[in-house]
């Protein structure tokens, strides 16, 4: 076990512990802090795996952006009924079912993935061979020539059936080129809807004033 592996285990276990604490903590600010540690730990895992861009984005978007808002909201609502969060039995049941389903999905995809296709090390020896931000952006927009070995990552349509026999990566057919474009657009529209909704909820609620016709100067 290399130092990287040991670090990965330590960070991973701590992240998992923080995630459990998010669920069992009842005080809302402490809960938000545990969530902060969980998200930061995930970013740390990304960095340990050599995914700099993903790690920085995780910090930027989740840890930096969302949680500032969470804490901001918490401070303004941390009185009375919102201070202690207590989940009812029904909520626990739904949460456990959803959690188990998600866990099952992850476990199944882990079990059925063909790990022999994975390269020996996640990091190529030559740093120039690594996937750069530009390639990531092009892959996102559906440029299939730059997509990484992505059967494990679940990218739609990057490995054909014929390729599995030879075990080598081939150019995927052009027909499936728009790999991430549609989900990307859906997320964008979703965010827009959230923004509009937030603006609608937070708008100043004024009484309607009947505007008298303006007399001419």
């Amino acid at each position, binding site marked *: 076990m290399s*130092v990287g592996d040991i670090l990965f285990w330590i960070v991973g276990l701590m992240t998992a512990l923080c995630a459990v604490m998010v669920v069992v903590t009842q005080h809302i*600010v402490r809960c938000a*802090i545990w969530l*902060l540690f969980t998200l*930061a730990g995930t970013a740390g895992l990304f960095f340990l795996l050599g995914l*700099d*861009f993903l790690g*920085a*984005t995780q*910090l*930027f978007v989740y*840890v*930096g*952006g969302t*949680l*500032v808002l969470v*804490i*901001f909201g918490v*401070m303004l609502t941390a009185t009375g009924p919102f201070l202690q969060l207590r989940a009812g039995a029904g909520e626990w049941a739904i949460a456990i079912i959803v959690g188990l389903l998600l866990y099952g999905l992850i476990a199944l995809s882990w079990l059925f993935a063909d790990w022999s296709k994975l390269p020996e090390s996640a990091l190529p020896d030559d*740093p120039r061979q690594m996937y*750069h*931000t530009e390639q990531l952006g092009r892959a996102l927009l559906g440029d299939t020539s730059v997509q990484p070995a992505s059967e494990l990552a679940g990218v739609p349509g990057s490995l054909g059936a014929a390729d599995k026999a030879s075990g080598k990566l081939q150019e995927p057919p052009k027909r499936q080129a728009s790999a991430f474009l549609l989900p990307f657009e859906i997320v964008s529209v979703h965010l827009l809807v959230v923004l509009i909704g937030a603006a609608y909820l937070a708008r100043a609620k004024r009484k309607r004033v009947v505007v008298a016709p303006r007399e001419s100067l």
Partner: protein
Amino acid sequence: MDWLTIGLIIFVISWLQILCAYLIYLERKVAAWVQDRKGPNRVGPWGLFQPIADGLKFLFKEQVVPAHVHRFLYILAPSIAVITTMLAFAVVPFGPTDVPDPRQKRFIIAPNLDIGLLFIFAIASLNVYSIILGGWASNNKYSLLGSLRSAAQIISYEIPLALSVLGVIVLVGSLNLEHLLNEQARLGIGGWLIWYQPLGWLLFFASALAESNRLPFDLPEAEQELVGGYHTEYSGMKFAMFFLGEYTHVTTVSLLMVILYFGGWHFPFVAEFNANYPGATGVKVLVLWTKASLVILVIMLLRWTLPRFRFDQLMHLAWMGLVPLSLLNLLSVMIVRHWSLSPWLLLPCSVIILTAIPLLHRWKSRQLDWA
């Protein structure tokens, strides 16, 4: 295990702590000079050992944790302040990175990180947690007020900060700090990005001051209004850690500004791109730190020159001043890049935007007053 990196990290952390101690000394001297006083002058010649005495005092002070605070978060907050600023420093080159043997002379902890700038912004955006948590955990009205102000301030100023640097990124086409620096050095003094991005630089300067809570943007602390703001309840080493974080942030920002806009270690005739006379590396390091020191000095002089903003002025400046200006700046860079025009066009462009928009704004507001 890379022992060189570990040694470098230990060296950089020690160096930053000494530097921060002496920056505080410098700040007190500058303040004294501005206010026609003498400043620290008792410990050692010209008070030069004052930072050491202060440091020892902080270390040996009793570690008081007030009874009414949230213990864990109270201790966590100053740690976050130090950790985030130190982490951000990991990708900032503090010397030339194109030296012949990088195994022997390395001036960056994490070399060749393609997303250097993004990493700095991502880490620096976490710094706000130290203030929010410190203010909340202190369980004190003044602290909470200071931290709430700071949350609004820092979130608002992150946007113009990132937008102003986007101009540089689009112009050079890289997020890699070393690449940005070497590109400028290669083109000589005409390649310094300050010629193409004067407006971007001003916006960056203003937003960076706000991000590091320096005057005129020090609303989270605001001694006169908030008894110290978020660090009212802190004493001893925990108090010192907040300031270690702040001064490390100032150092990082100054180095970043020099690297992004003033050609880094490049200086005509003294430290050219292909200079390889004996001792060239040392001269380059010296040039870089001299430039950064000048920026730090300007930041300190600003502190004792400008009054603090009122809160509504602060928000007005960010959202109605800096954000539109930085968007226009970005637009001009994009136009120049798209049609491959001469980048020198950006200089008049910046000047026009900087003069026309406030005039327009003034004319508009006067019209509204009249109506």
